[in-house]
């Protein structure tokens, strides 16, 4: 038993050495290494989920277990919403553990506060804190408790691989391996340094001994926590960096994958709902005369803020709901309309003037720099509200009875969902069991718990299990939209066309706070401000969050400055990135791949955009054909550096995915408001990109820094809109400052 911080008293005095080693005594985060499940150990409540064959299994740590068949099970505290996280995180753990990839199973962690993502908590709460290596007991402890308190066990922010994967999964795997080696060394009476591991086997070359992990799993749990588990360096990666096939794909091609909407509960009934279309309104009256007579109807509920019909089947419920006439109360949001919103933005920006608003960041004297600039550029950009439009409409199944509650859904933050259900039912967290499923699209929408609350309220009123499904119309009307925004720029260039001044004031800032900033561009002076504009609409995080607006704003304006300087967009950005080797490599790779500068057919153009976000650096070049009445994006070249690519195929898929999602928005995406209501309702008036409009995508992956991983799910999105609009300018001379492109006439 090594005399390290592992021996220091755990924060919770009731823990024993072989119990859950809690706050502050772990290597690098919420990892619990060397836990054995024993009677009376609170870990026991997890054991039914993890132990399948009985006593001889040891829970080596809460992230990984090794069973008698030498199968390594990775417990993943994140949700699979299509981004391949189950597989990528398992790769990280399995590689460090030297596990046989063909004998690795993956399960999702239960919605238990124990599995909170301390790593994410740390990044969110104290991102500037440079914590040396892996052992920071006090800090880790503090973060863990805070993270637990906030129910942080969520998937989003492109964090799973770069935080949990990098800090916890790899450490868990490495620690488990070291403990296994220590156990073997002890049994074989040889120095640990002579023991090697490979493919879930422990080997001692000198004596020819070899045994599977499972032989030493019990003994390993008796070993002390390694003080500093050594992580591999890239030349030793055997599983990380490989395009391993995803574990969840087979069930997604045979119809057996269970999504939230597929929950099955005996005795379950179905609910269709309609909430007040205008934010803040309530149901004043409802006329359910026809609905009461319709087939299958069980109950009709006026819940105050929404109406629900419960029936034997969803379709019957929705038919009956459609026949109900509802009158809503008046609210101040009734008059909200599209033009008024942007007029409001303009007013707030005008009122902020030269010195108002909130300062985000400034350097030098940007106003002076602009005033004295040889070349001045000014522009204003606008982007609309956007819906998430996940393929699987929002839904939730709930059952409240006898002081207990069960909830089924696909959610990005299962612990939050569980708490939301508890609050809605008037129960405690412990009384709720939350069952997570695959998500038919998350994109930030499924980090909200409004569906959980609604279903729980209905279930509480009926007393039997109810599956609530939102129609597509309801999903469109009750989204938490990506905020619209207006952004105004002033840029100054000297007589050599070098950027010397950058001023920006914009509406709205949510997250990440650095989205409007450009620290990677060498500009002598800058001044970036925001104004908060009150908006009576539900807003929420949308794939790449504020980078989705600011990526467009910034990379469009950089292009305008380049043009004013008489320079090519690539050359201009090269100058702005001068001295930053890692950034330049990404930009140069994209330019080279695309044949930047080479001839294109008539009315074709190339546009370039460069956006670092979520720790990854991405450059995209779009080739657009403007010879027809609408822009056709033919091809997108992507150069991406996320530090190190754990699964190249998975990362490439995420680039394709983000491009499609962002391009859909750039071409068509617009949620408009009239009389306070969202006007769009389904895919006929909120159009989607389809197979015939998907550009070819070519991706170059760059491993720029294996110790600082960036995200995969979101960074591919921010560059696509400006790459396309910059290409349109190159092809036609028309500068697009307002999205979506469907607003503009290119004929």
């Amino acid at each position, binding site marked *: 038993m090594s005399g390290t911080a592992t021996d220091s008293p755990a924060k919770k005095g009731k823990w024993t050495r072989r119990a859950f080693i809690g706050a502050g005594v772990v290597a690098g985060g919420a990892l619990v290494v060397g836990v054995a499940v024993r009677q009376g150990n609170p870990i026991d409540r997890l054991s039914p989920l993890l132990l399948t064959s009985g006593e001889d299994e040891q829970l080596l740590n809460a992230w990984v277990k090794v069973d008698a068949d030498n199968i390594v099970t990775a417990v993943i505290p994140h949700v699979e919403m299509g981004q391949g996280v189950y597989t990528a995180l398992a790769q990280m753990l399995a590689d460090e553990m030297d596990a046989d990839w063909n004998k690795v199973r993956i399960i999702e962690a239960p919605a238990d506060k124990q599995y909170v993502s301390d790593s994410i908590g740390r990044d969110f709460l104290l991102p500037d804190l440079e914590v040396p290596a892996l052992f920071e007991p006090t800090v880790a402890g503090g973060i863990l408790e805070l993270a637990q308190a906030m129910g942080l066990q969520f998937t989003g922010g492109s964090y799973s691989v770069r935080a949990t994967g990098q800090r916890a999964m790899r450490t868990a795997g490495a620690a488990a391996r070291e403990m296994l080696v220590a156990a073997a060394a002890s049994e074989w009476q040889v120095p640990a340094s002579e023991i090697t591991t490979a493919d879930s086997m422990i080997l001692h070359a000198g004596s020819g001994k070899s045994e599977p992990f499972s032989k030493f799993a019990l003994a390993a749990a008796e070993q002390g926590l390694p003080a500093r588990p050594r992580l591999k360096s890239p030349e030793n990666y055997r599983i990380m960096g490989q395009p391993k096939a995803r574990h969840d794909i087979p069930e997604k091609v045979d119809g057996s994958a269970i999504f939230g909407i597929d929950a099955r509960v005996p005795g379950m009934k179905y609910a269709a709902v309609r909430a007040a279309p205008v934010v803040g309104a309530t149901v004043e009256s409802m006329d359910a005369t026809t609905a009461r007579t319709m087939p299958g109807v069980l109950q009709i509920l006026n819940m105050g803020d929404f109406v629900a019909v419960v029936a034997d089947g969803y379709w019957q419920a929705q038919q009956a709901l459609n026949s109900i006439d509802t009158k809503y109360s008046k609210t101040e949001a009734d008059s909200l309309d599209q033009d008024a919103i942007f007029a409001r933005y303009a007013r707030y920006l005008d009122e902020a003037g030269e010195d108002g608003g909130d300062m985000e960041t400034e350097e030098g004297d940007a106003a002076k720099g602009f005033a004295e600039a040889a070349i001045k550029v000014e522009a204003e950009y606008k982007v609309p509200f956007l819906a998430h439009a996940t393929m699987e409409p929002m839904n939730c199944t709930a059952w409240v009875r006898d002081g207990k509650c069960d909830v089924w859904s696909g959610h990005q933050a299962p612990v939050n969902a569980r708490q939301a259900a508890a609050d809605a039912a008037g129960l405690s967290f412990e009384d709720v069991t939350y069952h997570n499923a695959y998500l038919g699209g998350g994109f930030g929408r499924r980090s909200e718990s409004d569906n959980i609350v609604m279903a729980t309220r209905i279930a509480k009123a009926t007393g039997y299990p109810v599956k609530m499904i939102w129609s597509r119309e309801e999903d469109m009307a009750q989204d938490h939209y990506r905020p619209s925004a207006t952004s105004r720029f002033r840029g100054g260039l000297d007589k050599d066309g070098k950027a010397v001044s950058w001023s920006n004031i914009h509406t709205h800032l949510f997250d990440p706070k650095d989205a409007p900033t450009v620290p990677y561009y060498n500009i002598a002076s800058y001044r970036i401000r925001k104004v908060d504009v009150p908006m009576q609409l539900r807003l929420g995080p949308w794939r790449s969050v504020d980078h989705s607006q600011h990526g467009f704003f910034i990379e469009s304006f950089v292009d305008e400055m380049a043009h004013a300087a008489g320079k090519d967009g690539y050359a201009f950005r090269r100058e702005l990135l001068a001295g930053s080797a890692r950034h330049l490599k990404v930009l140069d790779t994209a330019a080279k791949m695309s044949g930047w500068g080479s001839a294109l057919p008539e009315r074709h153009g190339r546009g370039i955009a460069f956006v670092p976000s979520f720790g990854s650096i991405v450059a995209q070049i779009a080739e657009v054909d403007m010879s027809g009445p609408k822009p056709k994006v033919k091809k997108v070249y992507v150069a991406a550096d996320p530090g190190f690519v754990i699964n190249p*195929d998975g990362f490439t898929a995420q680039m394709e995915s983000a491009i499609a999602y962002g391009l859909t928005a750039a071409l068509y995406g617009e949620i408009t408001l009239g009389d306070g209501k969202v006007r769009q309702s389904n895919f006929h008036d909120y159009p989607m990109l389809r197979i015939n409009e998907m550009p070819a995508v070519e991706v170059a992956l760059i491993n720029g820094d294996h110790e600082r991983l960036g995200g995969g799910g979101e960074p591919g999105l921010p560059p696509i809109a400006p790459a396309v609009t910059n290409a349109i300018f190159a092809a036609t001379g028309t500068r697009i400052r307002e999205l979506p492109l469907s607003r503009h006439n290119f004929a």
Partner: protein
Amino acid sequence: MIKLNINGQAREVDVDPATPILWVVRENLDMTGTKFGCGIAQCGACTVHLDGKPVRSCSTPVSAAEGKAITTIEGIAGEDGTLHRVQQAWIEAQVPQCGYCQSGQIMAATALLQKNPAPTDAQIDAAMAGHVCRCGMYNRIRQAIRAAAGQPAGTETVA
């Protein structure tokens, strides 16, 4: 009672004949592989086969299926569980991301190849354009269809 033939099995359901096939399959027959996406035949997630032809089950009443054979995603693999070559191609190309639209995509693809074993890209696009994939896996879908048709996969997405 309505008599149905679904994935080769005779089943009887006691439902309103106007009920869309989608909800009969999902709720009365407990087969959740077919998905609900929009309800107005705009997204393709609900696609099943009726006598081998792809239809939008969200907008087709179950009465229209009487006397016909319904095939769902659960029914396209072989009796012994061997995956359809389209399903195998989907796994090879690692097509699904979230996977929610994929039952519908696969049903459309299998129907296409049944009718036209060697489709051109234009024919693939025409057959598949009614299907939305919010995760944007269109290039992989096209590559997988080509592979299932025994053609070169193509280079829409290159890494």
